[in-house]
């Protein structure tokens, strides 16, 4: 029976994949065509979603974007025999999925299975190298597992880029009866969705990564702190955890090894600041998400005061392939001190948006034009924001910057979680700067003054600048305020809000009613 794939990823669903799937089943039944419908994850080519694939002897063949109204025509063209000439002549025929330019040049390590497998099929996961990392880890000492993660060069993919192995080592060496592994799945940055895709499209890889982390440092309890805006990820994770427990991959005596690791999903409640690790821990403890002073580090006194690994989804989901293929295999990708690959998320005003996993080192220009195809509006791309709402805005003159943590630091920007949001030339950068303050005011936890008060004062100063009131003084005030927030805030929310604000001011002074010369002064 021929297999037909229709994605169940949120983005595909947001474009009507559920209806397309239903229509395909109805049409197949009505025509007496026998098919097996598989609900896979998304391949990450969002402009072609819902992307329907058909299994053939040569590989999977793609059609897209397929709306319910296209389905009858596809059956008329005999698309279930996808390599037949009649199917190839169909306007939605795209050819072999693996040969699509978007996918062919990618280096998918963390996303190796995403879009290919049925997310909730453990058999499928195992058949595609799943749980190979855990198998190796179970034969290693905790210290050796931590060493492999350190040697791979993996750095926190949530944004801070702190070496994952060093964090793990601190937890490993912290003596305690109870330790925890916490997955930060509070993916609140605009322009990012790679965490969501992993959780919806390959949940077992996250479960495996967390299990390895637990075994490595001696933690028996894990929590996934999941943002409440992701109801599909919640359902998928809970079902995957249930299946992993049943199959002996979670719980007591994992695969007969004597190791224990319990895993539970906890729902966040719409506070952006809870993506900050100490605020997240407060929230997990059932409190207001107020940021904690550091030290003590969470690795020493974290959840309920115990040593705790707090890692982003992508960091943890990358651990299995490192343990499977070896630290060196992973470290061989990348540039400088940015080792391995980064799942890049193209978003905003681009013709082609979606997930691109590449070794560090590709330039923004390649991503915006070769992958993104330029602005969706057909106008020139004027600015891009990289790394979420606390990331800098970059002008065209910086598009040749390679995606590398240090290269971005050098131009006073951040790579963050790898989200790239493009804006065309209709964007008003003064408005974007005002919005950055407004967002900070809405989301501030209120614990420190620079963030709590500074964000609101920032909105007011921006309003005056836009109206042209006492212009030079207010621009100076904006810089002073940004300096206070940058140096005086307790966490990145207040401390990095000046990134979008000042980068907008410095690179696009004309939007603030300034000449380049005035801006430089």
């Amino acid at each position: 029976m021929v297999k037909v794939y229709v994605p169940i990823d949120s983005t595909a669903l947001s474009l009507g994949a559920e209806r397309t799937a239903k229509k395909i089943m109805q049409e197949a039944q009505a025509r007496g065509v026998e098919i097996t419908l598989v609900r896979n994850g998304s391949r990450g080519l969002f402009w072609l979603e819902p992307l329907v694939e058909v299994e053939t002897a040569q590989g999977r063949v793609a059609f897209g974007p397929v709306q319910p109204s296209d389905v009858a025509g596809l059956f008329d063209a005999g698309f279930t025999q996808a390599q037949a000439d009649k199917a190839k002549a169909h306007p939605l025929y795209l050819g072999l999925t693996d040969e699509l330019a978007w996918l062919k040049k990618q280096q998918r390590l963390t996303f190796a299975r995403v879009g290919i497998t049925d997310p909730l099929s453990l058999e499928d996961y195992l058949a595609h190298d799943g749980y190979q990392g855990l198998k190796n880890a179970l034969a290693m000492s905790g210290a050796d597992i931590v060493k492999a993660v350190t040697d791979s060069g993996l750095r926190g993919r949530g944004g801070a880029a702190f070496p994952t192995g060093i964090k793990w080592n601190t937890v490993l060496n912290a003596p305690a009866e109870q330790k925890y592994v916490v997955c930060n799945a509070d993916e609140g940055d605009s322009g990012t969705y790679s965490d969501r895709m992993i959780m919806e499209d390959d949940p077992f890889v996250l479960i495996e990564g967390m299990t390895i982390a637990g075994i490595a440092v001696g933690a028996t309890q894990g929590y996934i702190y999941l943002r409440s805006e992701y109801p599909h990820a919640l359902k998928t994770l809970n079902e995957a955890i249930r299946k992993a427990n049943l199959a002996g991959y979670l719980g007591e005596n994992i695969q007969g090894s004597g190791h224990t690791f319990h895993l539970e999903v906890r729902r966040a409640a719409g506070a952006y600041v809870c993506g900050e690790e100490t605020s997240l821990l407060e929230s997990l403890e059932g409190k207001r998400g107020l940021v904690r002073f550091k030290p003590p580090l969470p690795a020493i006194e974290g959840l309920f005061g115990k040593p705790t690994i707090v890692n982003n989804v992508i960091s943890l989901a990358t651990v299995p392939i490192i343990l499977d293929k070896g630290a060196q295999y992973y470290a061989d990708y990348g540039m400088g001190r940015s080792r391995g690959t980064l799942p890049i998320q193209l978003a905003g005003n681009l013709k082609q948006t979606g997930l691109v996993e590449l070794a560090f080192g590709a330039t923004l220009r390649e991503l915006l034009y070769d992958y993104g195809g330029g602005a969706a509006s057909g106008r020139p791309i004027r600015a891009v924001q990289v790394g979420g709402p606390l990331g800098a805005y970059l002008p065209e003159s910086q598009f040749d910057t390679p995606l590398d943590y240090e290269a971005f630091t050098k131009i006073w920007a951040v790579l963050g979680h790898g989200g790239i949001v493009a804006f065309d030339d209709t964007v008003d950068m003064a408005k974007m700067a005002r919005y950055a303050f407004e967002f900070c005011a809405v989301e501030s936890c209120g614990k420190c003054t620079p963030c709590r008060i500074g964000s609101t004062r920032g909105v007011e100063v921006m309003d005056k600048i836009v109206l042209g009131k006492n212009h030079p003084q207010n621009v100076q005030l904006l810089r002073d305020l940004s300096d206070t927030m940058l140096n005086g805030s307790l966490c990145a929310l207040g401390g990095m809000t000046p990134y979008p604000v000042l980068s907008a001011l410095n690179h696009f002074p004309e939007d603030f009613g300034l000449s380049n010369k005035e801006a430089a002064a």
Partner: protein
Amino acid sequence: MDNTLSHEQHVQIQAHIQAHQHVPGGLMPLLHAIQDDIGYVPESVYPEIAKALALSVAEVHGVVSFYHHFRSHPIGKHVLQVCRAESCQSMGSAKLEAELKAKLGVDYHQTTADGNLTLLPVYCLGNCGCSPAVMLDDEVYGRMSADKVTALISEVCHG
């Protein structure tokens, strides 16, 4: 006893409190469970929650009011969240929100006169590849326009 709550709702809340009483960090999951069933977390039950979890009423109030997701008062039958974040702005969400507010006759955090729909802002739905995005109840929709959202509302909320 809160007279606005039915007997059945009281029973549900009691069951949730009992189930979460001894869960480490159980307040957040408890509030979610109550809001999932009742639609909000009634202030009248704060004392019971506080007592069961060995907290003060102020602490319960503090948590409910800190998080955007939780609410202490009932809202419309359906919830429409419109994304205000940067990616959606780059694809015209400011126009979309203005048009939706005008069409629905409500501002953010308000409910339509028929009690059917509450409009809320949201900062990222993780659908940034298909901006602008909205979420109607538990489903996300991408590449939206005011007309498309209005059609969705008729289908989901009046269908």
